[in-house]
């Protein structure tokens, strides 16, 4: 990235600021000096004063005419597979971070199923060191629950915490042994870490490769019943009650799981949950039509029935589901271009999540304020991360969004190394125009309204573009 993108001095003028922490949703002018947010001007008078002051004192600053644009806190994704170390041909920490910035994310949590597994402090520190070389996105590793993700012995959770982990999970594999899961919850609680459950009864899921229902019956593919997830969600909620620990259910996909989490919250347990954009927008019906046997629609948990999708949306609306998390799971074309039952599970999601979220706003599932909360402050709070806030005196962490930008998903244009998107060919309305984080401009869309110099009259932007992003 060019130095021009670091420490920007910039006036974002006339945007609609959606800030979940202060519950402010209204017009704003944001004054950023050398990468730090100095002033939020909300009233018309304040904004005029800010404009005048900047014109007088900082004529060399940049300006973004943000009329009609939204500003959210930088987005936070609790569930990303960065594949490094070990699977660099699918994704690296660098390409994953670039995909994140393109998607409006300023902080992501990466799962432990790398090779070697992130089950000890050395691997945690390796990931943090690699991530530090890439600026613009904060990377927070999630440590393994068990050594080697084998579900037998606890990993060195306290040591990994010193190295920088923010939660523990054997994601990709369930912890089949209930006694080990109990110990994991107790032990993680000791160190104030949340346990993220990949809830799946492997024996019941068997060799299933899609949701079990009418579509799997038609296609002659082995199904994964909804109950394979629900049985383990129920078990883990019982264990959370037994241990008083913090439990987070990853990628909730069924109506039954939503109901179990809802009841757990009503009882006052510290149980939280996430849902993925593909589960919120797609059902197994896509595999029944022109997408028959298309491995882009193969992920675990699988795309479910429409009643499950509806329940997930209601859960997200009423707060039973705390946040949207992508479960970004890159796979190469060679990995995916095989017989359906042999293909690996997983879809990429970082670069389409915000657009998917905006479509939930358009369909009336969420308000804009709710969407901003479910994708930034909400998830940040679950793992105790210092993200999702827009406050004067802090380094910038923002997503600038054009809600009216129409675009069609073309995975070949992704920043991610992989192309396995379940939204390929979809036309979305709304996308990220700029991402600002860690005192720099980490992403600028090619189509975005250009930044101009303050000294130039508004409405007559020059072609001066920020280079190198």
């Amino acid at each position, binding site marked *: 990235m060019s130095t021009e993108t670091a420490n920007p001095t910039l006036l974002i003028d006339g945007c609609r600021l959606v800030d979940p922490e202060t519950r402010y949703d209204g017009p704003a002018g944001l004054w950023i000096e050398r990468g730090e947010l100095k002033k939020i001007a909300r009233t018309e008078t304040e904004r005029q004063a800010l404009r005048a002051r900047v014109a007088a004192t900082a004529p060399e600053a940049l300006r973004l005419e943000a009329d009609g644009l939204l500003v959210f806190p930088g987005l936070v994704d609790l569930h990303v597979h960065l594949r490094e170390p070990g699977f660099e041909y699918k994704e690296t920490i660098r390409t994953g971070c670039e995909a994140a910035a393109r998607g409006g994310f300023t902080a992501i949590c990466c799962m432990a199923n790398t090779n070697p597994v992130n089950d000890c402090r050395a691997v945690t520190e390796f990931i943090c060191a690699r991530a530090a070389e890439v600026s613009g996105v904060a990377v927070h590793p999630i440590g393994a629950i068990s050594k080697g993700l084998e579900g037998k012995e606890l990993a060195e959770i306290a040591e990994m915490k010193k190295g920088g982990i923010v939660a523990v999970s054997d994601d990709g594999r369930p912890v089949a042994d209930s006694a080990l899961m109990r110990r994991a919850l107790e032990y993680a609680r000791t160190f104030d870490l949340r346990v993220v459950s990949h809830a799946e009864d492997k024996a019941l899921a068997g060799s299933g490769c899609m949701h*079990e*229902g*009418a579509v*799997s*019956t*038609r*296609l*002659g*593919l*082995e*199904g994964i*019943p909804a109950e394979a997830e629900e049985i383990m969600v129920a078990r883990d909620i019982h264990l959370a009650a037994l241990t008083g620990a913090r439990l987070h259910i990853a990628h909730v996909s069924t109506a039954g799981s939503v109901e179990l989490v809802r009841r757990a919250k009503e009882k006052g347990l510290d149980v939280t949950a996430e849902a993925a954009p593909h589960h919120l927008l797609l059902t197994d019906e896509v595999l029944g039509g022109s997408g*028959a*046997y298309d491995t882009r629609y193969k992920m675990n948990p699988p795309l479910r029935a429409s009643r499950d999708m509806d329940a997930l949306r209601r859960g997200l609306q009423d707060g039973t589901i705390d946040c949207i998390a992508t479960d970004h799971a890159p796979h190469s074309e*060679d990995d995916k*271009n*095989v*017989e*359906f*039952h*042999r293909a690996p599970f997983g879809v990429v999601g970082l670069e389409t999540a915000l657009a998917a979220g905006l479509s939930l706003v358009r369909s009336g599932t969420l308000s804009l304020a709710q969407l901003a909360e479910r994708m930034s402050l909400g998830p940040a709070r679950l793992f105790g991360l210092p993200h999702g806030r827009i406050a004067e005196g802090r380094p910038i962490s923002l997503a600038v969004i054009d809600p009216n930008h129409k675009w069609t998903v073309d995975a070949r244009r992704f920043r991610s190394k992989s192309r396995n998107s379940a939204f390929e060919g979809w036309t979305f309305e709304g996308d990220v125009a700029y991402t600002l984080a860690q005192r720099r401009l980490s992403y600028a869309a090619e189509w975005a309204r250009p930044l101009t110099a303050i000294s130039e009259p508004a409405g007559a932007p020059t072609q001066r573009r920020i280079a190198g992003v």
Partner: protein
Amino acid sequence: MPALSQRHLLGIEPLLPGDIRTIVETAKSMKSISKRAIKKVPALRGKTIVNLFLEPSTRTRSSFEIAAKRLSADTLTLSGTGTSLSKGETLMDTARNLEAMAPDAIVIRHSASGAPHMLARILEPPVINAGDGSHEHPTQALLDLMTVEERKGPVKGFKVAIVGDIAHSRVARSNIFTLTKMGALVWLCGPATMIPREVEQLGARVTNSMDEALEGADVVMMLRIQLERGSGSLFPSVPEYAATYGLNRARLKRAKRDVVVLHPGPINRGIEIASDVADGEFSVILDQVENGVAVRMALLYLLITRPEGRGGTA
């Protein structure tokens, strides 16, 4: 005869009833060729057909080979072992290599549901599904229909009982689609472990009672119990299965007096079907084999000579 609405034969599900009629009527005229002294016509002379059989098969493979030869096509048959697939080449690479040889049709048998769809997505020539995993076995269902019609006329309004492991049977799926499209009433029968979820949505009725399935049936289709799958998961033992869902003469009395009994073969005598039924007067099992050649001749002919640009694609 109208051309088929589909460019490939990936399954029965996408076919129109008119397509099924066309295939069966064409098969009837093809059948007469097999009864001549010289069993060969030049209809597909100069055409090349690749048979890609990546799962063990004797009956279907030889049936496709004979069908192609009777139409004077050149055939190349590749089986699972001895191909580059056993050396780790992917199905997609194998398919692209075969296409470079410019075949006029590719027939595929594969253990993966959806394998023919993968080929059809990238290949130019018509792809014919000769059985894919637990999905479909369309030529089997078409020859079954032809066989029943020969004996009993149109199937509209017939009660057809299909008995066995419906969940893992591609024969069952293709027959459900074929028979419901042609107006028959399909009853599926087996223990609940063998009945797939929400199968009623395909237009069939389900019963766990063999007697209820057979009561007044016009047609009974027995499915092969896959002993290689191993008992213990879907049923406790072979004797228990045979006693509960095996077809014998006594049970068959519940069916219509002119019932016909089909089996896709190879049969497990004394397990899903008693020998005196398999070899008895109601059995049309050998007619099925004969008609298999005719149906495959019809399909090869219709797909290879299909005019370009007609109707939908698959």
